[in-house]
């Protein structure tokens, strides 16, 4: 204990290894809690999907052949793609503006991003329920401009619209963090070399902001894939997304192995995506930005 708090020499080799081992003990409580109440349950659910009621990949074959699960998975992937694209399109200019304005204005914009992020998820989804319901604000706005019967509640579109708003902070923050590390003098250089301002942005700024784009998109994509509350409240059972199906199987049918198999598929898709983008950026770093920003 003593050593853990007093050692501060720059020379690692000179430090007795015992001190470092002692510091390692600090990791133990959190690790133990995570192993018992997070990793073990995850492993158990994956294990069950292969072993109950009998060993094999029966549940996975069933998912492939039941005609519904693959449709749901594809619909979920498509929704996640649409949400990430829309969020990127909306967030990019906003994040760009954040890097340009004076510090005080930047603080205000940051607060605008963070406040809804920390506002109760239930409150935000309730708000979207109110806006999207029959005879709600959105339907009335659309009928005012001549489109009758636009009820988003109970549709994938309704889920998408709400998700875009819910996910915006997760796109803005990684983008902002990536953009703020770009040296704006490079744009002066590009222009001095004969590039028009538009071309300077396209050939210099855009490529340099790509890590933020990848980080933000993968983060939003992954979070949308596994998001439950918005589809459950604003979507419909007829057009359900994967998280709704998992919930129904486990909660109503107590089909742990079957729901677990779907969950495993979702988990694997998530991990594969994470791995695929890990060479360019860490989406968890994007998440950390959200915490740091506050």
């Amino acid at each position, binding site marked *: 204990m003593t050593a853990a708090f007093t050692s501060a020499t720059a020379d690692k080799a000179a430090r007795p290894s015992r001190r470092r081992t002692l510091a390692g003990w600090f990791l133990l409580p959190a690790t133990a809690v995570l192993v018992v109440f997070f990793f073990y349950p995850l492993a158990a659910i994956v294990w069950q999907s292969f072993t109950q009621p009998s060993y094999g990949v029966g549940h996975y074959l069933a998912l492939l052949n039941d005609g519904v699960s693959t449709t749901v998975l594809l619909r979920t992937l498509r929704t996640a793609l649409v949400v990430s694209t829309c969020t990127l399109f909306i967030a990019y200019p906003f994040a760009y503006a954040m890097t340009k304005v004076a510090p005080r204005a930047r603080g205000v914009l940051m607060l605008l991003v963070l406040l809804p992020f920390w506002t109760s998820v239930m409150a935000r989804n309730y708000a979207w329920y109110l806006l999207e319901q029959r005879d709600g604000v959105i339907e009335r706005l659309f009928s005012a401009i001549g489109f009758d019967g636009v009820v988003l509640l109970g549709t994938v579109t309704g889920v998408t619209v709400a998700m875009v708003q819910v996910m915006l902070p997760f796109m803005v923050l990684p983008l902002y963090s990536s953009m703020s590390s770009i040296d704006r003098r490079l744009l*002066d250089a590009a222009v*001095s*070399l*004969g590039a028009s301002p538009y071309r300077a942005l396209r050939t210099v700024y855009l490529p340099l902001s790509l890590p933020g784009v990848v980080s933000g998109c993968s983060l939003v994509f992954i979070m949308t894939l596994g998001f439950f509350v918005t589809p459950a409240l604003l979507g419909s059972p007829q057009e359900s997304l994967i998280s709704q199906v998992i919930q129904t199987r486990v909660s109503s049918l107590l089909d742990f192995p079957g729901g677990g198999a779907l969950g495993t598929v979702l988990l694997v898709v998530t991990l594969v995506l994470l791995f695929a983008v890990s060479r360019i950026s860490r989406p968890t770093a994007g998440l950390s930005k959200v915490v740091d920003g506050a």
Partner: protein
Amino acid sequence: MNKSGHGITISSVTKVFGGLQRPAVDNVSLTIAPGEFMTFLGPSGSGKTTMLSMIAGITSLTTGSICVDGQDISPLKPHKRNLGVVFQQYALFPHMSVAKNIAYPLQQRGMAKKDIAAKVDEALELVHLRDCADRLPRQLSGGQQQRVALARAVVYQPRALLMDEPLGALDKRLRDQLQREIARMHRELGMTFIFVTHDQHEALTLSDRIAVFNEGRIEQVGTPAELYEHPATLFVAQFLGESNTFSGPDRTGSVVVVRPERLDLHPHGSSIPPGHNSLEATVTNIVYVGNHHQVGLHFADNTQGTAMRLAGTPVPAMPGETVTVSWHPDHQAVVPDPAAAAAETEPSGQSDTPRLTQPAI
């Protein structure tokens, strides 16, 4: 590459930044000859960089005009000006290879791929970096990066090359080496160069002419020798090299400036060369700095000064002893006393080189 330089005329240019009292650049006029190596020298905040960035078009003018070959470029967008700019922190595009960086301005001008390759090759040859064509900027040393920046800024034969403290981020050895390369490029390309620096040695070594900036104005323009031997103002005298200043007793409002290497030291009481001005001083210390001795002097009027004795020449006094200091009036410059000038009204237009009419002491 072609050998045609372009002349640049700066007429009454002023720049006022919002919220600041004093203009960053205050009514500056200057003519730069075709093919000339012009240096803007001055301390930070003197307006030299702002002046450069106004020529480049990165900063707008408040009033005045800037002409290249008689054509007013101030209404032109920066990317239409066809000037090369080298930035202090290189400003190389980190996501492009060295060759792509150099090709960038050529692509903006819609040059054919084949011609671009040839031009890039030629530019890489000019800065001796052919082996580094496919590397990324971060894989290069600071000196190499700045050479890439130079190649990128001249590859499209701009009408002039503007450099903003290009050597500021480098260590001394690299700085000397790049100075020589820049001088060589200037000879080979025949282009008009404008070079911004706060380093007097750099300015003296490289320039055809130097414009000394102070508080947004140009104090003096001239060749390195003119500025060093005949500074027009006390600021120029003190900013370029070391100098001893004496107040002139019979000419109030002026100061006499003599360079340390122009001071002769004589044993106290010995005769001085005819026609020389002289003063009594006490030697405070003697410092050996390799090729010469630096002799600290304390004059009777309580001012401090320095004299220089080449190594091998004996110093005629020990610290604490009194010496006679003398110099020939041709080696002194008489400049207006800024304290007196401030007491009067606005400083009037200063004459080029003051000619001394009488010994000041």
